[in-house]
């Protein structure tokens, strides 16, 4: 017996995620991967070697270790953690033995947390990745969310992980670069977009996050008929009824709604962790600035 874990309780939208399924857009499959890539990376760096992660949502996760000693790291967001009833700080690295019971319950901030082990998960890569893509029903455990009574076995050591840079989560406005349809919005709407009061709505998942447009910035935007075009994570798309939605890691690969901008790579993890009700403001940056921030955010 190779050992592994037994899930006792899983919140909604608990999935397996690795670095993502790159290069499949033309086949109709978006990249997936962790909603908070920095949190996922930090989790791996805490172990040195790590396998794919279990990404859990606000409600957390309970599991029991079966038939193996292992190390686990938990990071991303701020959750409440205990092992065998004893509290541990967040984030933490734990030395676990068979029979240990770990409980992750809601904490003060964040939408997503990561659990990784010093072992790889015994799940078959699909098209080069173990990431669950819920839209396509691919990867992870049979392409679906994890639930109570699921068992995940270990298989060999995890992959070496580079030590992550000290995290600077950033704060303030979400920075974006103007989008491929920005010129279709009247100048007055673009200006009001920068001044508007926006709030993260409760309708969010791995595909996208709907935004409340409290000032009605886009309420009068006429419905535009556009040729369907490629989507990338972070795109700020305005639906026909004027609702802004930020497309996330499991985004649909193409879409025909106008996109006013794209949240920069360096700010997307922070956005993913913003809970419903969080106030938002958007600030444009140049492509050069976005690049500098991205390069700084991924430098080991």
């Amino acid at each position: 017996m190779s050992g592994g874990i037994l899930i006792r309780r899983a919140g909604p939208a608990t999935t397996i995620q690795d670095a993502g399924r790159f290069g499949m857009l033309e086949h109709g499959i978006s990249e997936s991967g962790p909603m908070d890539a920095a949190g996922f990376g930090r989790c791996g760096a805490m172990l040195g070697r790590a396998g794919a992660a279990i990404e859990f949502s606000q409600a957390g996760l309970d599991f029991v270790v079966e038939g193996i000693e292992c190390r686990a790291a938990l990071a991303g967001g701020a959750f409440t953690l205990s092992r065998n009833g004893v509290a541990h700080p967040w984030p933490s690295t734990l030395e676990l033995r068979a029979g240990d019971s770990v409980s992750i319950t809601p904490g003060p901030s964040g939408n997503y947390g990561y659990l990784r082990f010093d072992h790889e998960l015994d799940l078959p890569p699909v098209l080069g990745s173990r990431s669950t893509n819920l839209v396509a029903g691919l990867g992870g455990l049979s392409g679906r969310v994890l639930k109570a009574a699921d068992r995940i076995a270990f298989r060999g050591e995890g992959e070496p992980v580079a030590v992550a840079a000290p995290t600077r989560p950033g704060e303030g406005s979400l920075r974006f670069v103007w989008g491929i349809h920005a010129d279709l919005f009247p100048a007055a709407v673009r200006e009001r977009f920068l001044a508007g009061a926006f709030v993260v709505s409760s309708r969010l998942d791995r595909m996208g996050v709907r935004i409340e447009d409290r000032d009605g910035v886009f309420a009068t935007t006429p419905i535009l008929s556009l040729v369907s075009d490629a989507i990338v994570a972070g795109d700020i798309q305005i639906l026909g009824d004027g609702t802004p939605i930020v497309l996330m890691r499991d985004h649909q690969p193409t879409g025909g709604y106008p996109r006013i901008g794209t949240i920069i790579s360096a700010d997307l993890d922070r956005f993913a962790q913003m809970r419903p009700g969080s106030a938002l403001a958007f600030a444009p940056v140049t492509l050069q600035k976005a690049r500098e921030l991205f390069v700084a955010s991924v430098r080991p």
Partner: protein
Amino acid sequence: MWPEILPLGDQGLLVRFSRTLSDDSNRAAIAFARRLRDALPHGVREIDPNLVSVLLRYDPRTVTFESLAGEVRLLLSVAGDGGEIAAAAAHRIAVRFGGEEGPDLAAAAAALGMSVEVFVAQHNAVPLRVLTTGFAPGFVYCGFHPETMRLARRTSVRPPVLPGSVLFAAGQTAITSTAVPTGWHVIGRTAFRNFDPGASPPTALREGDRVIFEALS
């Protein structure tokens, strides 16, 4: 100035040949995608052809948008107008039209003032081109039908239709490979599946390929 070279986020460069879908703009996108496949510019990690554009996803640590845009302009200047798409693969797709598999066939034919028999014959009369892929796993758009076969989408969206559904609207025929909701007319179904997650690559049809629809009786 067409085509436009635009940033799509901070790791994407979009080459957009038009703002409207036409035979010319689609051909240009396909021709450019093929050119890219032959020689991927430095720093480009993935290309994604669309109806009238091609997305190049690049690594900003390796290449800047400006230098990639320069390389793209150079490629475009020698890419020709896309008028001729060189030797494309041809695929025969057998379709059961109408009945339970194609609940909208009769209405679509009637809306065009044709009998079902004439509609099917017209639909299958000439090979279509794969305009693009990528809306959903294995999903392909094929076109273009002549003006006499041009029909708007339905006014309502159907809940997800079965994989293999053959969809008709806007002068095009699309084939699904997974369950997707659609506002198009569902005119038939095929046993062909353009998606196999165990295969590499996972899809068989590529932009620019020729598709010949055949009616199963």
